[in-house]
């Protein structure tokens, strides 16, 4: 499918799509008001589970990736039960600690290769596979967005007491959203592991978290497409900049994060934006009204 691209571009494409998945993992939890900073840790979890199952147990890559995603999801489900009773800032802090403990435990264990990590993972994930996975995840998110559950999740983000009051089972939805966030993060980590040959705990660091967070926040919590657009655009800009000094990277991500939070705390894709676009599409009511107004003005 992507044979017209040179191998390097294909490799870059896969890492872009892995970032897209990580952003979606943050989005899934954030759309119902859970700011989860654990995704990077879950990604590490998925990556190491998948790589170890493939190299030590001889599982096929596809099966290992699925197992990696499920392992991260299970971890999120179990620990979600413990920390999801927290609110706001405490949840952010608790999930941050959870993610970091995941990475530190991996760095401390011997069968995961410690700080060196794992070298020599077969590269069996190409751009086509990654693209198919991303498209499937996006399609599922769109189905969720249009469903009753999706509306319930968005209501919880705006005010979870009101949502609970109108009959939304908020604790269960939070738990499953957190678990889904874990599955997607694990999937991202596992796909990444099978495309980069080598993984180490050090790559799942604060820098990666900041980058993903910047993309997810710019994308906003209303619709998944915001995060996807932000991840692709920022990723491509960074590719074009090439190997840049840490200062440039700091200005790009740190500066963007601050500016967006100050000026557009809802991100680029929010309800008003979508309504505005819908109102101005050709054939929509807004456009017809505008044309009618113009015609009547011209007739006078």
């Amino acid at each position, binding site marked *: 499918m992507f044979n017209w691209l040179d191998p390097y571009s294909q490799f870059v494409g896969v890492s872009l799509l892995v970032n897209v998945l990580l952003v979606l993992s943050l989005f899934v939890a954030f759309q119902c008001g859970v700011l989860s900073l654990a995704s990077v840790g879950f990604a590490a979890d998925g990556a190491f589970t998948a790589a170890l199952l493939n190299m030590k147990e001889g599982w096929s890559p596809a099966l290992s990736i699925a197992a990696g995603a499920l392992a991260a999801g299970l971890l999120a489900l179990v620990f979600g039960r413990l*920390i999801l009773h927290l609110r706001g800032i405490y949840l952010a802090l608790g999930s941050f600690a959870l993610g970091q403990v995941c990475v530190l435990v991996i760095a401390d264990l011997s069968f995961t290769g410690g700080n060196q990590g794992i070298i020599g993972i077969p590269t069996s994930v190409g751009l086509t596979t990654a693209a198919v996975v991303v498209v499937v995840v996006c399609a599922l998110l769109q189905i969720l967005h249009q469903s009753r559950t999706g509306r319930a999740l968005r209501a919880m983000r705006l005010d979870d007491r009101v949502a609970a009051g109108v009959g939304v089972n908020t604790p269960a939805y939070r738990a499953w959203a957190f678990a889904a966030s874990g599955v997607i993060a694990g999937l991202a980590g596992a796909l990444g592991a099978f495309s980069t040959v080598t993984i180490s705990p050090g790559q799942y660091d604060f820098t990666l978290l900041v980058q993903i967070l910047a993309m997810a926040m710019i994308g906003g919590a209303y619709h998944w497409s915001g995060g996807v657009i932000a991840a692709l655009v920022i990723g491509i800009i960074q590719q074009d900049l090439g190997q840049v000094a840490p200062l440039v990277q*700091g200005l790009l991500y740190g500066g963007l994060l601050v500016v967006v939070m*100050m000026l557009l705390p809802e991100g680029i894709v929010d309800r008003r934006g979508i309504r505005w676009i819908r109102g101005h599409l050709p054939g929509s009511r807004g456009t017809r009204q505008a044309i009618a107004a113009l015609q009547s003005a011209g007739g006078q």
Partner: protein
Amino acid sequence: MLQQTINGIALGATYALLGLGVTLIWGVLRVMNFAFGQFITWGAFGCLVAIEDGVPIWLSVLIGMAVGGLLAVVVDATVIAYMRRRRSSEFALVVATIGVSYLLSSIAQDRTDSQIRPFPSQDFPDGVINLGSVQIPELQLMSLAIAAVMMVGLALWLNTTKSGRALRTVSWSVSTAELLGVRSRSIFAIAVFISGALAAIAGICIFAETATISYSSGDALLVVAFAVIVLGGMGSVAGAVIGGLILGLAQVYTTAYISNTFSQAVGYIVILLILIVRPSGIFGSQEEQRV
């Protein structure tokens, strides 16, 4: 064992300073400031630059504290004050301070070429006092003394002076305080400055002990600071002191008896355990928001 306990108390006292810095901002401004780690790094670098320029050690420490404090005030006056006026959500504030932290850290990384620099511990007191079988480095005594002076000073300020009382009023209710004629903005600025200065002095004590500093040194201590206040209860001054001592002892014992690498994880594990078991911390009052 006794030796380890003394090491732990000395480390815990500096951790308590970190906790006090964070708890002060949380108590007054209700902001979880992820840029706090940068106040540690930048303050300590300020001190380092001053020492390298031949400034006497006590003045260098004061310069470092001023750098940390001023940086905190600048961050607060630009980003956080603006977002407070716009009534941004708690999440937006947290994410913005994460952005500030990353920005400041990459500036420090750029200026130091990502190198680990030696921190001139020979300029600090480096003798050892023998008490029976126990050896106490003078550096540890200095850290302890600094921590004690800071804590007593902070307690006196909060409880006896007019501005200290004003600060406590503001932390209770900003609008009531303003009705009573308190200038909340200058009180905010004072609290933020002290918080940054505490970060800097704690960082200087710890880096003088380890004799190294790099652009990312403060990030590890940010986790420690958060662990201390989660342990002690957010916004509680006594909790920050006790939490700091417990964490210092826990970390020294883990390093001595379990493993060195595992001690990094102690801060995170403490945060997780306390949030799971008792989210209000040891001294925190129950808040409806947290559970």
